[in-house]
């Protein structure tokens, strides 16, 4: 059976959810073979097997963490040369896309980004212009390289062997030009990551201050959600930049998106309008965000949100 090469996204031995999404997607087209760059493959084996990975190419070595992106692209190119997969799936994260871009240059194979689904023959669904238009596209040169948007595919368990196959790849000097000299971890909260979360609670200008973000965080924690913010909020310094949802921030498509005090400028909508269910709280009934709402409350967020939190607590007993 043909292999589908899947680039794992992981932090050490902790496997990112998008990896399971990719493996789930890969199963429809062939045997998922996971490319694992860096340490941790042994510890992750069982988890990868749970989602049906047939094989894990484990390339140990510090280079993959010590240098920016290029070593991972070399690994994928080498594995693709050896295993001749039918397609290469990479996480549609900023780094995953960069790896894919370098792989495309190395191989001359076509690359599709921000893919939310694959049909027969690797015909890809891509929402463009902030989800306003859906496009189908395909790679016509070489093996398809597909960067899949995180959270677009529902990971489904299936038994796999996840046989570990150690691979020795010599990373070239040309891939060691940008050296990682330090790693700064900020705001390590217990909340799920924004692009992975199945529920996102986002705040906009209406929240009014940095202090009031605590209210948004409380609601997020009741829902097991990630916290997001509109650009107005991050530009004002009320919440860190990396939580910005929108055209110049992250694109999210969770099961539930709760927009609080967000007017819904197109800039913001571009980052969230493919969310499956959208709930809105805003005091302005004319706010364009209501056009996207499955359920909306016109009202003062400082009354509605505390009551909602209280109600969730009550119902969860």
């Amino acid at each position, binding site marked *: 059976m043909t292999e589908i090469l899947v680039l794992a996204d992981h932090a050490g031995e902790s496997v990112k959810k998008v990896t399971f999404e990719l493996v789930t997607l890969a199963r429809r087209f062939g045997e998922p073979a996971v490319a694992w760059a860096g340490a941790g493959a042994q510890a992750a084996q069982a988890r990868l097997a749970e989602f049906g990975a047939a094989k894990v190419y484990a390339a140990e070595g510090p280079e993959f963490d010590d240098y*920016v*992106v290029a070593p991972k692209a070399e690994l994928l190119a080498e594995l693709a040369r050896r295993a001749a997969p039918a397609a290469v799936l990479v996480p549609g994260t*900023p780094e995953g*896309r*960069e790896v894919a*871009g*370098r792989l*495309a*240059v190395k191989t*001359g194979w*076509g*690359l599709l980004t921000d893919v939310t689904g694959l049909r027969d023959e690797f015909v890809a669904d891509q*929402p*463009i*212009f902030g*989800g*306003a*238009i859906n*496009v*189908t*596209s*395909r790679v*016509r040169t070489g093996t398809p390289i597909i960067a899949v948007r995180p959270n677009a595919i529902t990971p489904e368990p299936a038994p796999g062997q996840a046989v570990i196959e150690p691979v020795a790849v010599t990373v070239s000097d040309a891939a060691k030009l*940008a050296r*990682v*000299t*330090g*790693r*700064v971890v*900020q*705001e390590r909260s217990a909340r799920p990551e924004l*692009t992975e979360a199945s*529920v996102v609670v986002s705040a906009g200008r209406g929240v009014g201050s940095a202090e009031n973000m605590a209210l948004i965080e409380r609601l997020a924690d*009741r*829902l097991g959600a990630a916290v997001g913010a509109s650009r107005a909020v991050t530009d004002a310094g009320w919440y860190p*930049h*990396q939580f910005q949802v929108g*055209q*110049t921030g992250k694109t999210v498509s969770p*099961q*539930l998106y709760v927009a609080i005090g967000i007017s819904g400028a*197109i800039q913001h909508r*571009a980052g969230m309008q493919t969310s499956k269910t959208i709930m809105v*709280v805003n005091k302005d009934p004319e706010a364009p965000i*209501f*056009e*996207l*709402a*499955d*359920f*909306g*409350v016109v*009202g003062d967020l400082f*009354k*509605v949100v505390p*009551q*909602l939190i*209280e*109600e969730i607590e009550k*119902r969860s007993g």
Partner: protein
Amino acid sequence: MNIVVCVKQVPDTWSERTLRASDNTLDRDAADAVINELDEYAVEEGLRLAEAHGGEVTILSMGPERAAEAIRKALSMGADKAVHLLDDGLAGSDALGTSAAIAQALRRIGFDLVICGSESTDARTGVLPAMLAERLGVPQLTLASKVEIDGDAITVHRLAEYGYDTVAATLPAVLSVVEKINEPRYPSFKGIMAAKKKPVETLGLADLGIDPAQVGAAGAATEVLSFARRPPKQAGTIVTDDGDGGIKAADFLAERKFI
């Protein structure tokens, strides 16, 4: 220091963006065109680095005639000169073709530092800077929220999900910036007037020795098969808070099994 900033003209997010039915490419006539927002941050960073370390800022843009407007905008911010990569044969290029053409133009221009916005607001692939680094064989310093240069040593903060990495390299390099890096200046009246006199060189495929079969729609390794407007969302339930808005919201979440 010889700094080249890549800018792209994109359809304004605020206008109606669509594709052309004839060839499934962007309908450039249907939308207002602006300089890609993140590219303004790239121009700003280029100007700041040139001001601090000396040197010249060249704008490089690939696009149709109309892209000259985006080039003028960048020049009016203070860049010194520009190169417009303009050729009908480039129309319909995908990321691979675009990166091949831009890399070739960069080799011709020469550079110590190439600066790009980290992605464009239209295609949003975010792959071009990495592709340029791969093609040019120089360090990839992408997703930068902070840049420091000391001689030929360059250090950046690379944005990550958990915070950032510090990354070090030696020039020449390709840099891409995120919006956190600076606050782009507005062109002054003087700057706008001066931009009209700044040199803009136009280069085509033949000038750069690029094989037409490698670029444009014909050379693209990907193709769009079809497109359709997203069906309009069914109108949702909107209630006005009468003191029980939070309760109704909880009812909705319960009904959808989120709580």
